[in-house]
């Protein structure tokens, strides 16, 4: 380790004319770049769920404006992500790690949160590339390897062409350059979270991310960590496009009930009171100083608000007090430990059910001496239901045995949504459009002709229901089967079902995973409703536009839901098979040579004659004993032998010689091959 004695370097003072020009050119770019700087925002949304649980949705957004030095010089934006975007020319990408399954029935399926943050279990990755068609696959394969290294996960298994597919139009951001792949069995844990946190400027050292206490969040019922990046168009010639990186973490947690002693029946109706400390075991002691905004939101969804309004009305009826929403929200039926900085009420034009309410808390106001610990205490029991997607989708397997089976997707109307669907139900030609996107691995050989459609339990002609279908059949060991469909169902449909039959294929011995007997996963199907948009529009305000989370809520994205991942048991071979093969080969060789030599060497007729001859003669004592012994060993009736005694010693010598010969051969064999 050498230490520098004195500055060595003399700054070049004499700049050549050309150099001056460069200076000026870069100076002007800098001035342009100053307008937009790299930004970071952190937000947390909390939402009570109907089944006594709490949803926490962390939303971190970093953005890098278009600039000449993206991928090389960064101040807040993670360099690794920027280099990834530049190297693989990624236009849009989403990677999610999920543990557990989103419970669409009780946690809702219509809000922006389940619609874009409820993900299939394991890893899901899709990416849109900005490269010519023939380079997309190579880019995808390199991307999977890089992500695998970056996030400590086995994403590199998505490299093989059998695991990813190219949806044409049914996957929402669909375009020709999209690749989509899932790993349903990937286990998600802290080793995936730590590299994800490294992308945040403050990691989990300061700001809202402090709440991410590993034991608390991994104890939850659902855990989904997502990374979404979009590269925005480059501003001008020579500029590298900007990037918006959106990192979200959605957890569903069960708050520790503070009234544990109460009887079960009455406890059922009372929502548990909770605080940040009770669900995460930590408090927010200040913002991440690099964040432009740092907010915590509490969202009460439409169902809950409607229920509260109803309860409020009943209480106030005796007093004959006309209530305004303003009064109502300042005297709610629950208590918050901190005063909200703002209350947003959803602009409600479509839904009669009520409008959701959002409380905003600014973390900036709190400090280490006065940490932010939001708590919510219910004063009255409330029961409500979350808003559902128009149809509830589930998928299951039919049939038995290891040979064939069928996949069924069942869509059931959610009673609750009838209200808003009824609005156009009077119309004769009311249709409900449903997009289905399903990928099946090649070893599940789907017969597409066997597709059957049932509406309200009546079989229907396929052409009546399916408006558009795109099928790319699987190729053995090359590509998975992809099925994309657009269904047009009548609005008053109660239930619909799709079934399709398949044969189970055989795999090569080294294609089986280590735990082959567990079965093979069929990735979740994606059901989307393009006519329904999950968006929450709040009063137009500057503060809404500034918050990335709220502006995300305002985007019109189609309602989407994932079905369950299926587990198909396949015939598993005996994995000691190679050794059996070796044994059989060796046995066959031994039999072949043995019998061949026997046939060539022995003269059966001669021997028989000779034996008869010998039987007539007397035998010695030693050979008598020997033959007796051998007869005993063989379990045969002893016959008096007729071997001559004189030959025995000579035969023994020959035997010894042969044994030595065999031993010598064995030693030679060992020596040669070791």
């Amino acid at each position: 380790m050498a230490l520098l004695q004195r500055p060595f370097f003399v700054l070049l003072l004499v700049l050549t004319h050309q150099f001056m020009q460069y200076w000026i050119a870069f100076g002007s770019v800098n001035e342009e770049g100053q307008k937009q700087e790299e930004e970071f925002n952190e937000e947390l949304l909390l939402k009570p769920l109907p089944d006594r649980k709490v949803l926490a949705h962390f939303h971190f957004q970093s953005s890098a404006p278009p600039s000449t030095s993206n991928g090389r010089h960064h101040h807040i934006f993670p360099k690794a992500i920027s280099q990834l975007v530049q190297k693989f020319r990624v236009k849009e990408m989403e990677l999610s790690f999920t543990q557990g399954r989103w419970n669409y029935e009780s946690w809702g399926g219509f809000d922006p949160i389940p619609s874009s943050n409820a993900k299939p279990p394991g890893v899901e990755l899709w990416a849109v590339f900005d490269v010519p068609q023939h380079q997309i696959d190579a880019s995808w394969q390199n991307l999977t390897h890089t992500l695998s290294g970056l996030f400590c996960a086995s994403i590199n298994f998505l490299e093989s062409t059998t695991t990813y597919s190219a949806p044409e139009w049914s996957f929402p951001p669909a375009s020709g350059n999209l690749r989509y792949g899932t790993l349903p069995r990937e286990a998600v844990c802290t080793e995936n979270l730590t590299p994800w946190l490294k992308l945040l400027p403050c990691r989990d050292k300061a700001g809202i991310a402090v709440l991410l206490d590993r034991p608390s969040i991994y104890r939850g019922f659902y855990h989904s960590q997502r990374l979404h990046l979009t590269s925005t168009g480059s501003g001008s010639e020579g500029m590298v496009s900007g990037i918006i990186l959106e990192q979200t973490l959605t957890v569903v947690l069960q708050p520790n009930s503070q009234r544990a002693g109460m009887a079960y029946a009455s406890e059922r109706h009372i929502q548990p009171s909770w605080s940040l400390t009770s669900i995460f075991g930590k408090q927010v002691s200040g913002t991440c100083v690099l964040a432009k905004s740092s907010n915590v939101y509490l969202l009460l969804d439409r169902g809950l608000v409607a229920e509260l309004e109803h309860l409020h009305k009943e209480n106030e009826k005796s007093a004959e007090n006309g209530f305004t929403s303003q009064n109502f929200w300042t005297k709610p039926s629950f208590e918050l430990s901190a005063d909200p900085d703002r209350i947003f009420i959803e602009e409600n034009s479509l839904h009669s059910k009520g409008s959701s309410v959002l409380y905003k808390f600014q973390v900036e106001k709190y400090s280490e001496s006065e940490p932010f610990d939001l708590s919510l205490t219910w004063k009255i029991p409330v029961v409500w239901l979350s808003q559902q997607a128009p149809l509830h989708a589930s998928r299951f397997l039919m049939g038995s045995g290891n040979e064939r089976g069928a996949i069924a997707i069942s869509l059931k109307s959610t009673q609750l949504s009838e209200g808003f669907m009824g609005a156009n139900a009077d119309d004769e030609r009311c249709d409900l459009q449903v997009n289905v996107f399903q990928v099946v691995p090649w070893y599940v050989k789907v017969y597409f002709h066997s597709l059957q459609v049932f509406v309200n339990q009546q079989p229907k002609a396929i052409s009546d229901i399916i408006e558009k279908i795109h099928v790319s059949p699987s190729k053995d060991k090359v590509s998975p089967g992809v099925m994309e469909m657009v269904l047009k169902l009548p609005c008053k449909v109660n239930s619909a079902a799709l079934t399709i039959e398949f044969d189970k294929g055989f795999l090569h011995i080294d294609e089986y995973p280590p735990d082959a007997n567990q079965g093979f996963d069929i990735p979740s199907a994606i059901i989307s409703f393009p006519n329904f948009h999950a968006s929450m529009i709040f009063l137009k305000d500057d503060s809404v536009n500034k918050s990335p989370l709220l502006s995300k809520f305002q985007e019109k994205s189609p309602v989407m839901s994932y079905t369950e991942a299926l587990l198909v048991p396949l015939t598993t071979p005996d994995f000691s098979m190679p050794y059996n093969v070796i044994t059989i080969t060796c046995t066959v060789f031994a039999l072949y040579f043995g019998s061949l030599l026997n046939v060539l060497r022995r003269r059966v007729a001669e021997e028989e004659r000779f034996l008869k001859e010998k039987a007539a003669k007397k035998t010695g004592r030693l050979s008598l004993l020997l033959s007796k012994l051998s007869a005993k060993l063989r379990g045969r009736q002893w016959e008096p032998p007729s071997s001559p005694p004189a030959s025995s010693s000579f035969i023994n010598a020959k035997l010894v010689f042969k044994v030595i010969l065999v031993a010598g051969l064995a030693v030679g064999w060992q020596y040669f091959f070791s």
Partner: protein
Amino acid sequence: MAEISEAHDSDSSKSTDNASEAPTQPESEPEFNPKLMRKTKPGLKRLFLTFSVLFSFLLGLQFLWKSVEIYRSPLPFREIDSLSTQLGSDHLIFPLHFHALFVGFDSDPDRLRLSILSEITKLTSQNPKCSHNYTLSVTVDSGSHCLHSPTTSPHSCSYQCGSITAIDFDQNDDVAIDERLVPVFGGKTNEYSVVVVKGESERAVVGKNRRAWVVVGSGREVEIAVVKVAEVLVKVFVNGGREEGSIRNEFMPVGADGRIVLSFNLLNADPRDWVYDWDFRKIDNNLLAPMIEALGPVANISVESQVLYHTPKASFSYWDQQLQSYVFSTKDLPFFVNSNEWHLDTSIAAGGRSKILQFVVYVPSAKECPLLLQLPNGEISNTNGFISPMWGGVIVWNPQGCLKDDNKPTARRTIPMQDLENMFEVFTGQFRQLFGFKSVNIYAGASGVWNLLPSERGFTEWELDVLSRQHTCFNLHSCASTLGSLSRLVQSLPRMIIMDEIGKQVKFSLEAAKLAQSNASNGVYESSAASSRQARSLAEDAFFHPSIMSVSYYSFEHCFAVYSL
């Protein structure tokens, strides 16, 4: 072959079986009844049968052999061996041309030449790997006429007699003298020249190009001049002015693919106290770009930067009342870099085998500011930084006055440009040290002190020559040893699949190595460095080809089971 041995086994086991039933053996029985014995010898039929069985077996054996056959691309083993023996036995010889010019002297040039040569031989230490083949020419310019030695040297003809005089060296501006010397010896020659003049102010200077000059006082000037000339030629121009054993030549901070990524990191230990940012783009364009361009033949260098937050150091510092600052000492340095919290990620943009050098600016938090580095002798380091060979360098930068702005702690401040420039001077010095050069511009030799003129590009021309030579030598040896290992590995594993691609890479690597050798012996350093880099990177690519790793284990039993392939 296995099948044959198997046959032996079964054969012999068969015969032992027969032996155990020995009493029933008809052969060699003395009491054998000749009446019942078949008289005729086994006929042609049996022989035919035996041979047909044997033949069919041999035929089948070929099919079996074919089915377990593997593909092996032919590798040029002989050429690999010849490359390593060539590099091993007769060294890689770089030709060097020295030129000594004595202005205002009237000695005999031949005598001067011989005495300089004897001094050079005294100073030269034999490098076991690469050596130099030097030629020396001496010119004595007595003002009116010039004398050359040897008279027919092809290298001394570029000097025009009488074009410089002792008056040129009277001025004290060394940079101007250096500029003045460029046209005198012709612009672009590869020879190293030393000018010796008589004058009042004795000094010895090495210029930015391949020139040096000595001003000697009156007295025993010729003897002193000869020693000095020999020293500057051997120690400075050939060895780069580095001490023996400072940083070994093997520690060349260049990746196996010939690339270096300079990753600059600004670490804010605690952003709650203050947040500093920098304008790195300006630095990159103004200060780093010329240096990177200069080092082009040696390595392909790219620059990245990032700012990280919440990155405390791992070692402790203590408050020094006298200095009014926090102090950490050199023995804490191994613990200064906090690998848990400093996530100086490897670069995705760089390839797998690139070398990444991390340069870190550490901004201490308010509770350890100002933070100073104490040298073992108790003094405070001027640069407040240190290097770690093959990893990079660290500089601690203390904000002005260490004042915490309590009103607006979160405001992002920018490091002043002047401080940044100072910092990057230190970084340039550290970078030079990582390459084995000195960070100070003075060379203290046995015969006196030489003043080295620094280049605005960070590396002077003769330093780049030294780097190129050293780099060529290192790369060629590394390439030869990698290819040698590959050929040994391939020959030791007869059942290893060798893809065509590996064969191609080996071939190209050998070609590049040959080109580098021929360029080196012609004295074209830059292109020899570039092609030696290519040779090494191709050799490494071949050795680390993914297909080699997958089949390096292949058990013999697999020959029996024809279930794959």
